[in-house]
């Protein structure tokens, strides 16, 4: 499809202060493309929470984004520990983040619920000891 734009981001877990750079870049690109502010905000929040999760839980990873005239698809792939219980992880307030992450303003157990809330479709594939891939789609309206 010639109307599809593909973007790829390497998310590093070495420096927490840099977490969010990929989301910031994507937000600017979508804004420049003239995507509506509501859609841009939904994509930005979903991606930012996902990016933070990769940094906190999975030692980073790779985010691939496809933008078509109809939707934005974000594929967040990591080689982290995997999610033992997805139902629990999806509960608002449930968190396995360490205390030092809470002092940075995250780890409230809202990451995955927020990602689901702001995306129109979310799919999680995870295997313990292998990694997790989260695919989120936001329709452009």
């Amino acid at each position, binding site marked *: 499809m010639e109307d599809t734009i593909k973007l790829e981001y390497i998310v590093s877990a070495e420096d927490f202060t840099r977490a969010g750079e990929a989301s910031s870049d994507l937000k600017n690109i979508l804004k420049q493309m003239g995507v509506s502010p509501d859609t841009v905000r939904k994509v930005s929040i979903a991606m930012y929470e996902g990016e933070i999760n990769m940094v906190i839980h999975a030692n980073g990873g790779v985010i691939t984004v496809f933008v078509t005239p109809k939707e934005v698809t974000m594929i967040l792939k990591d080689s982290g520990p995997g999610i033992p219980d997805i139902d629990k992880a999806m509960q608002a307030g449930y968190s396995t983040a360490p205390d030092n992450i809470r002092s940075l303003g995250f780890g409230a157990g*809202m990451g995955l619920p927020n990602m689901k809330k702001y995306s129109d479709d979310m799919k999680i594939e995870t295997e313990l000891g292998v990694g997790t891939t989260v695919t989120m789609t936001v329709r452009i309206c």
Partner: protein
Amino acid sequence: MLVKEIIPLLDAELIYGSDDIDIREIHSGCGSDMMSDVLAFVKDQPVLLTGLCNPQVIRTAEMMDIMCLVFVRGKRPDEKMIELARERNICLLATPHTMFTACGLLYKAGLVGGA
């Protein structure tokens, strides 16, 4: 409420202000140290009051289109944070008041909660 009106209400110092603080309008307020809660609940062009002072506050504001941040209890952002805010045109204020008092002062002046 305008950003410039918040400054005297909170005895705040303007750490970074774009040239539009005279007309930059704030519709609601939110006070939180948990950025995930901000990402979950906040809407409608708010001011965010927080005791958290790290670059993720600026990034959270960026994602939520929050145009004004107030650091409570006299906390001050460092140069790196100010630079991030400047690039994104987000106003930064610092107030000596505690979170509770700062939120109360704005509420009393007519600002409502955003969630």
